[in-house]
């Protein structure tokens, strides 16, 4: 099974990125600075007011930052796996022209997955660097947050690829954003402990990948102890969503583009 074509699909996405990387990278730095300043320092000063100076034993900014990091990976994955993919599939027909060459559908799919990982990695590293500047990373082991965040992005991006492969127009994207991405951003442990929520929201949070990603990333950057079993469950959920997503996405691409 040849995968050389996947590398060229990635190369094509990098050619595209080369045209926009400056602006995109600046946003990747500015956005976490704004969020951490406004919500971490600003809002956090209200939260840690009076006797309760800490949230779960740390300043609010330090608590918030890893949650935002994982949520940003989710949002980046959502952005990359919906409109751009459908455009190449349906509107600009880029995949049709690629598939007229020896490149196979699975190589197209894996190339796009590779680009998704690269894209999430860029955003993650930028965000992580900002966290270091805000002293929100408590130990060198916090570096583990980088691969864990990228995995969180993949756990969303891969199933979203499968979703996109089944869309005939873009209305489904608004629904996915409204009913999955935004609610998770708000409820999956990014801003406050999930245990504070009504049970139905807790269940919603824990059956999707973000809460698991947040838990792992937070444990890494705060160097806080985490039960091995809990860590294993979180990791399994992320790997499961990624693996199943890749399988379904590949099938979706084959069905959509194989005719």
């Amino acid at each position, binding site marked *: 099974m040849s995968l050389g074509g996947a590398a060229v699909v990635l*190369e094509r996405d990098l*050619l595209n990125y080369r*045209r926009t990387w400056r602006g995109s990278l600046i946003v990747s730095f500015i956005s976490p600075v704004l969020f951490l300043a406004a919500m971490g320092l600003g809002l956090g000063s209200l939260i840690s007011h009076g006797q309760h100076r800490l949230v779960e034993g740390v300043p609010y900014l330090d608590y918030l930052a890893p949650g935002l990091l994982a949520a940003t990976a989710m949002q980046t994955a959502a952005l990359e796996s919906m409109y751009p993919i459908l455009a190449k599939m349906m509107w600009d027909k880029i995949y*049709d*022209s690629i598939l007229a*060459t020896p490149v196979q559908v699975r190589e197209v799919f894996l190339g796009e997955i590779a680009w998704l990982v690269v894209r999430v990695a860029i955003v993650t590293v930028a965000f992580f660097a900002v966290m270091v500047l805000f002293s929100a990373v408590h130990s060198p082991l916090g570096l583990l947050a980088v691969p864990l965040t990228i995995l969180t992005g993949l756990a969303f991006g891969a199933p979203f690829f499968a979703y996109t492969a089944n869309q005939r127009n873009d209305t489904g994207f608004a629904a996915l954003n409204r009913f999955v991405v935004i609610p998770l951003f708000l409820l999956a442990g990014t801003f406050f402990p999930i245990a504070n929520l009504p049970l139905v929201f807790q269940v919603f949070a824990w059956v999707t990948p973000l809460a698991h990603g947040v838990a792992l990333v937070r444990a890494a950057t705060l160097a806080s102890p985490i039960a091995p079993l809990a860590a294993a469950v979180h990791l399994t959920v992320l790997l499961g969503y990624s693996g199943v997503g890749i399988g379904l996405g590949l099938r979706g691409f084959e069905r959509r583009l194989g005719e």
Partner: protein
Amino acid sequence: MEAVQTPSRSLIHARGLVKRFGSFTAVDGIDFDVEPGEAFGFLGPNGAGKTSTMRMIGCVSPVSGGSLRVLGMDPAVDGARIRARLGVVPQADTLDLEISVEDNLFIYGRFFGLSRARARQRARELLEFVQLTDRARDDVEPLSGGMKRRLVIARGLVNEPDLLLLDEPTTGLDPQARHLVWDRLYRLKQRGVSQVLTTHYMDEAEQLCDRLVVMDKGRIVAAGSPRELIDRYSTREVLELRFPADARISLDGLPDGLAERVEVLPDRVLLYTADGEAAIAGVHQRGLVPVSSLIRRSTLEDVFLRLTGRSLVD
């Protein structure tokens, strides 16, 4: 049935080729061969099955029935290996709007496995060939329709294909752009690049094709060189007569001795005949006075309309 002998030199060999989409049969059992060095055309109205046939030859659409060999190989087994030697110019422009004109060619070369240096060199050669060198660094979107078409043709040549597949290569282009494309295709043919093209422009088929088949409703209804088809399905000349709009002339007996076939259209009458001058003399002799008359040579268009009818196809 399966053990069809493949003539060893045919570039494409199809027998009983079928393409179905659900219950709809787009291509309904067609036979044809394309020989090395020739330009072969599929002519037909919209929906005749031309594009479906091209997509099967291009190994991007699985065959539903019958047998197909392309470059001596089976598309179901050797799709990637066949595609490596094909150049494809699709009907829609499918250019990559997110990268520059030159990078469109460069990355396409990379998809065919060319090294970066070779792909870059090839991109520059081809921009030269289609006269787009001065637009190399530009975006694709602002290019004119003719320029985009030339870029798509250049892209189809990036792997130096043995066989070029062109799906309606000049549809939507202005006359200057069409002639430039034809010129480039003619030069490619001189260099020995075999071509298979679809078109519904008769002048294009006459210009470019050595041999062609006329398709209608998924079937081949005629095959031959443009000249052969005109000889077989039309007459040497056509006399076109216009009468005043309110004249209700009797055409009874008009064909007798004057024309092999008469066709009455809302705005004119066509007489298919070997000798247009004799026919117009005969018309006058019978006391008919047309507003205008025109004698022209029969074209592929006459053949086409005779075979596929005049009703509108959607």
